[in-house]
């Protein structure tokens, strides 16, 4: 068992971890303090022949102290936590100039949608990945998170990022990865019988590599749209994620306005 968190690879990860370790130290101290005191009292004041307990009803001074001290500690913790929470979750202060993708959850898979050549979502030139998301390193990524059926929860432990995907809502979330690599995307909300199979990969690539990959995808999509017979193998370039058509299931648009069930 491990009380230490695995290292985080997002820009805000260390902020979360810092508060976590502060709370760990404080609660750890309280834990050892109270438990040791408890054990000491049990030993020290155990019944012995002829002993009698002292007739004490309490102490106002003690009550005031142990009301005020925890109060101050927890309020300080809350004030420390608030700006970090705000930075991570408040859409109004999300970083500008993010790279945008759409991520749609459904039983039991994730579909990532890229805007394609025109930079607009929900257009014919969009291209999608299944159970995989390729993103550039060192750049804020803005995800429009949606769900098509039930509530799922986007969870990438290494980014310290979690957000429920709620049908009927499109929820913006962001992160900025500081290290390339492949990170597991999991579903953290019970979503049906296949809940535990709903894993995917967030592949953080170097900027240049990502741009090259994106250009290939855009071109491939344009080729399909241009009526040129495109090879169905283009998915191979997307690593182990398969490329699916942006048009084939046009009805199942992630940015739905209710009614595409």
């Amino acid at each position: 068992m491990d009380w230490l968190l695995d290292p985080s690879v997002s820009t805000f990860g260390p902020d979360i971890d810092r508060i976590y370790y502060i709370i760990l130290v404080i609660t750890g101290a309280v834990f050892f303090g109270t438990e040791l005191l408890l054990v000491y009292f049990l030993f020290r004041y155990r019944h012995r022949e002829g002993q009698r307990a002292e007739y004490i009803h309490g102490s106002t001074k003690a009550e005031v102290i142990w009301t005020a001290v925890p109060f101050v500690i927890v309020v300080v913790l809350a004030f420390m936590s608030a700006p970090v929470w705000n930075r991570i979750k408040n859409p109004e202060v999300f970083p500008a100039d993010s790279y945008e993708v759409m991520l749609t959850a459904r039983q039991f898979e994730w579909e990532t949608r890229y805007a394609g050549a025109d930079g607009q979502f929900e257009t014919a030139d969009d291209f999608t990945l299944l159970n995989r998301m390729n993103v550039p390193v060192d750049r804020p990524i803005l995800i429009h998170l949606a769900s098509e059926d039930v509530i799922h929860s986007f969870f990438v432990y290494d980014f310290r990022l979690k957000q429920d995907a709620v049908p009927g809502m499109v929820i913006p979330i962001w992160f900025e990865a500081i290290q390339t690599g492949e990170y597991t995307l999991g579903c953290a909300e019970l979503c049906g019988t296949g809940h535990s199979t709903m894993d995917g990969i967030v592949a953080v690539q170097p900027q240049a590599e990502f741009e090259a990959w994106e250009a290939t995808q855009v071109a491939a999509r344009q080729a399909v749209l241009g009526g040129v017979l495109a090879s169905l193998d283009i998915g191979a370039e997307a690593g182990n994620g398969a490329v699916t058509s942006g048009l084939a299931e046009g009805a199942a648009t992630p940015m739905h306005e209710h009614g595409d069930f």
Partner: protein
Amino acid sequence: MSHVATKTDYDLLPFAGEHHEELSFVRKYIFSTDHKTIGKQFLFMSLLFLLLGGTLATVMRWQLGFPGTPLPVDILPETMAPGGIILPEFYNSLVTMHGTFMIFFAIMPLLVGVFGNLLIPLQIGAADMAFPKLNMFSFWLAVPAGFIMLASFFVEGGAAGAGWTSYAPLSTSGEFTGVYLGQQLWLISLFLLGFSSITGAVNYITTIINLRAPGLTWFRLPLTVWALFITAILVLLAMPILAGGLIMLLTDQTLGTTFFKPELGGEPLLWQHLFWYFGHPEVYILILPAMGIVSEVIANGARKPVFGYHSMVFAIAAIALLSWIVWGHHMFMSGMNPRLGMTFMFTTIVIAVPSAIKVFNWLGTLWKGNIHFTTPFLHSVAFVALFIIGGLSGVFMASTPVDIPIHDTYFIVAHIHYVLFGGSLFAIFSGITYWYPKLFGTLMNETWGKIHFIGTFIAYNLAFFPMHGIGLQGMMRRLYDPTLYAYLQPLQPWNVFISYSVFVLFAFQFIFAANFLLSIWKGKKAGPNPWRANSIEWSAPSPPPHGNFERMPVVYRGPYEYSVPGAREDFILQTDPPDSSVAPHHTSASTSH
């Protein structure tokens, strides 16, 4: 001159007051209006459900420890575990029904139904509840609720599988889970149980306000009664909110309404708001009576007045009040407005303060005491030790940014079990052992009680403490097979370890069951006051007759007057007249320490 209870009286008239009316078997044991019998009925029912909930947990732990391995005993039908291998849909039913049974059919009726019924009239010196027939009605409403919930395992599609929280829209339609009728039975059962709880709460509140014995002022009430009183208020006001939600979810499933169906304009988050607006007070419904029991038993074991009685009462009230404005902390990741998340963080984290006050007061009660290590006392001290852990782990989740990685992981599973098992259930063991004489007239076996305690305490911590760690490493809850995630595979040895610990923990409970059942017949006769305690119930015979007290008790002091200087004994019954404090005459007290 007041009537003085003597040993002779009670021995000659073990059922004083009952000789007036001969009740038939059915009126006496089945459709009884006697609060003690109803308490016993709740006790047997909820202990059975506790056993069932525990059994479901062991089956779950088998799957988590050894995914894909056939169960050692292959007795489950094809629809649940063909060839002994647990199906994912059955696993989801296990998750759901374990939570449902434990929360609604075990812990809640044990704390509220059993101790509420047994203790309220006895500790306030009343003959019975204010509405004995309503009391009977509330038990006989809980029984069909339990049967319906049980039956749902055997209907087409199996039992509900959307978690005990039944989040919409997963729960709104069978097409998402494969569970149709089972989910509806879940809703109907909880609706009945909710109605049963509300009628119980009306009864408790009225009884405590109206039927207190002369001299029993509010601040002379035992903390158990205070806790049950405030709990009953929470039940009264929280349950109807759930009822509204249950009805809407049921019509969404059966009639085709659209309250929670997003494709037709419904709001899935509305269910979560309704559920947690009920659900957070519910969490305190499941812990406040336990805190009352623990305060009572710790003072008794330490032979000392409860430290800071008034601040204990105010802390209970503060927790209850705060519980209405913290429900959003269950929804930090739900897509609710992040500003609300921040507000709820402040209200939530403040709840740590009254909880801390209670812990420090318990420690203060032990300080300079004269501690007798009885079985109930050990369980109560374990409550304090484990509640500290459960309370402190709550601080992590209250801090919204830290909640992001640990929300919906095994960290929360550890937290809830430290509060509800380490907390509530240890208090229940304590309470059952402590008040056993008032139920059955005998004492439970102390040796076996201590063996059960030590085994449970160790196995419990081995099972649940490591869950904090695997949660911090990112293991999500409610996973059918954690090994499907590559990054969770290194944690699998811990899952195996936890599973073995749970099996041991489960096995130890049979010691309690045997001790509980056998002591009814074989237990040592208790006498009216085996723990040498102060509160009113200990002036009545064990078990008290129909009507409880031969004469209306009159109360002269608070319930925790232990070790009063100058008094001959280290306890004084609340009902002993003032002059008796110097030369007490509770000859009836038999010591058992």
